[in-house]
């Protein structure tokens, strides 16, 4: 296949990068409290966010699917199907930039690595060490093929050697998360899950950077690399990981799974990370308040799970009422903190979406409707990218000085002309003055010497 030909032949359409299957609140206007500035949301940063969302959800779904596979869990098929849908989304995004053929080729390569992970899980279940080694060797081969594809597609903006390193990290994180899950070392398993989602934001930045550098006019010459875009993606990462971890924690909770405590602890770690982000903008007092309010809603989700486990309908209703009250408090906090840039009414609406998605994902899981569960999970995960976008938009608008580029506007003056041809009268004048000054000094010194004699 001639990739280069494709690059010229297929015009990129940004709208194609946000197909109907991606219900993301990337556009500048959304339901979290008003428009984000161009600095935060523009064609380039929206592409970055879209890729971050798809790639990091891939990591999450891959880890979850491997767990469900080794457990022989009833929702394994639905988890695997969602992972496959995620591959379709990513391939569609690739096709929208590099053409249908490239999209198909990408899909084949990308799907192969998911297949090798499945092989690894199957071999582990069969206690087949040779099978595991074969799967790892296949993953090594995959890295080379995938890196080569992206190197060629991006005209070497992404270099195969760097890509192979990045892909190795992705593969290692997933294998490490799985091996430790199987070994019962859940701390390592969940910290690797958390890190694997975070890692994909680096991949998303790299890929979106390469694409926007390659087709600058398709992105109104915007760059993905600004302090505002970095804030947006840092918050997107933390908020989406919250949704992902909350869902897995609720599932593990109702299942009475041995890794429930660790999943919950990782969710708490995420709360601490979010709190640190809030503190960096709104200070210690603001962060303390945020932490209390945010923790309260996690507590109400736990109440809901506990009530469900006990088949306690009143307890469920109480938890839902508490979550309604939480929405009001959380919305008021963010309205005040952003000085009205995010409106409480809009925030309450957005938070209702978040709460409903998590409860539906959980209810459907309990009811055994796993296809619906994973649709809810996808929606809940993607929703959080709207939250990160809205909050970063407000913060950047509120504190523009904190988000100015450190980049210089002009090149340095790295020459003073001393080696240039022709006389430099400035230099001559300085030298002449110096000589005159020294001469004068000499005369004075002589006079002094004479006087002293």
């Amino acid at each position, binding site marked *: 296949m001639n990739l280069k030909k494709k690059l010229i032949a297929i015009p990129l359409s940004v709208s194609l990068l946000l197909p109907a299957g991606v219900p993301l609140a990337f556009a500048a206007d959304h339901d979290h409290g008003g428009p984000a500035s161009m600095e935060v949301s523009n064609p380039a940063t929206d592409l970055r966010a879209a890729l971050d969302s798809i790639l990091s959800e891939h990591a999450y779904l891959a880890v979850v699917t491997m767990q469900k596979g080794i457990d022989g869990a009833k929702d394994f098929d639905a988890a695997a199907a969602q992972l496959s849908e995620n591959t379709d989304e990513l391939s569609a995004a690739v096709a929208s930039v590099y053409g249908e053929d490239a999209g198909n080729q990408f899909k084949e390569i990308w799907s192969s690595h998911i297949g090798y992970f499945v092989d690894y899980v199957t071999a582990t279940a069969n206690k087949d060490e040779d099978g595991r080694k074969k799967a790892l060797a296949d993953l090594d081969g995959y890295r080379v093929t995938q890196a080569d594809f992206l190197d060629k597609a991006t005209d070497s903006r992404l270099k195969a050697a760097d890509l192979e390193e990045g892909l190795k990290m992705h593969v290692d994180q997933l294998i490490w998360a799985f091996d430790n899950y199987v070994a019962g070392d859940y701390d390592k398993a969940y910290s690797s899950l958390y890190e694997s989602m975070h890692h994909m934001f680096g991949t998303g930045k790299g890929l979106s950077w390469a694409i926007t550098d390659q087709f600058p006019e398709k992105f109104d010459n915007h760059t993905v690399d600004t302090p505002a875009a970095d804030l947006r993606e840092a918050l997107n990462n933390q908020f989406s990981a919250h949704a992902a971890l909350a869902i897995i924690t609720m599932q593990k909770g109702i299942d009475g799974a041995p890794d429930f405590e660790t999943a919950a602890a990782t969710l708490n770690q995420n709360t601490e990370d979010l709190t640190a982000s809030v503190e960096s903008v709104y200070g210690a007092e603001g962060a303390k308040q945020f932490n209390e309010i945010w923790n309260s809603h996690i507590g109400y989700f736990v109440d809901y799970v506990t009530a469900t486990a006990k088949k306690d309908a009143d307890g469920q209703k109480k938890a839902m009422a508490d979550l309604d009250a939480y929405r009001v408090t959380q919305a008021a906090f963010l309205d005040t903190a952003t000085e009205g840039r995010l409106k409480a009414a809009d925030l309450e609406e957005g938070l209702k979406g978040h709460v409903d998605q998590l409860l539906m994902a959980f209810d459907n899981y309990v009811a055994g409707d796993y296809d619906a569960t994973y649709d809810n999970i996808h929606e809940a995960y993607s929703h959080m990218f709207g939250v990160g976008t809205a909050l970063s938009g407000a913060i950047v608008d509120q504190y523009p000085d904190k988000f100015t580029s450190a980049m210089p506007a002009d090149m*340095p003056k790295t020459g003073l002309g001393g080696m240039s041809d022709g006389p430099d009268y400035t230099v001559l004048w300085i030298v002449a003055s110096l000589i005159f000054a020294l001469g004068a000094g000499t005369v004075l010194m002589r006079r002094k010497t004479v006087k002293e004699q």
Partner: protein
Amino acid sequence: MKNLFVKTILFVLSIVLLTACASNTENPKASIADEPKKPVDVSQPETEVEQVVEDAIVTSIPAPSAEGLTLTDNRVGIQPTRIEIPALHVDAVIEEVGRLENGQMGVPQNPDHVGWFSPGVKPGSQGSAVMAGHVDSLTGPAVFYKLVTLEIGDEIIVHGDDEALTFIVTKKEEYPRQNAPVDKIFGFTYTSTLNLITCTGVFDRKAKTHDNRLVIYTELKKP
């Protein structure tokens, strides 16, 4: 008196080029060497999640080992203190420079030093680290006088406090001073790059600067 005079002039006009060469060390990567405390449990797929993880030693599947795995991005870069360019016999102290009021990248105070743009990224981390050095002083050649003679494949060694990184020249470009692609020179890259800047072309006495800028693009050498 004549001696003092000559010495003074020599002092004023002197240019010291340090030409020592030092050895290059690779960037060591931190390794994660946690040993699992629990025995491995490998079960056939079960329908009940609770039954899955029990302590049972199975010899056919080894315990998880982080050996050879890269689990986090360790590319934090180094705080540069010295730069060596063996091909030019340059070994210079690094000064931190920033952005001037007029938006220009700052320059080192000493024409024999190299200025690292410290608001940007550190050498070895992801993105473009940028350093600038004078081509000449008021009176003679400066640290990057011969930068223009660097060739693709030449090595640049940047020293930090305890480690050194080697970069390889990949491209040489000359731009009109007011028309250089600043965004590209200072902007994000997926790989770790180091870009060296100096002046070139004709010295414009009115503008008190050379009319062109030379940029040497380099990339981090992989271990």
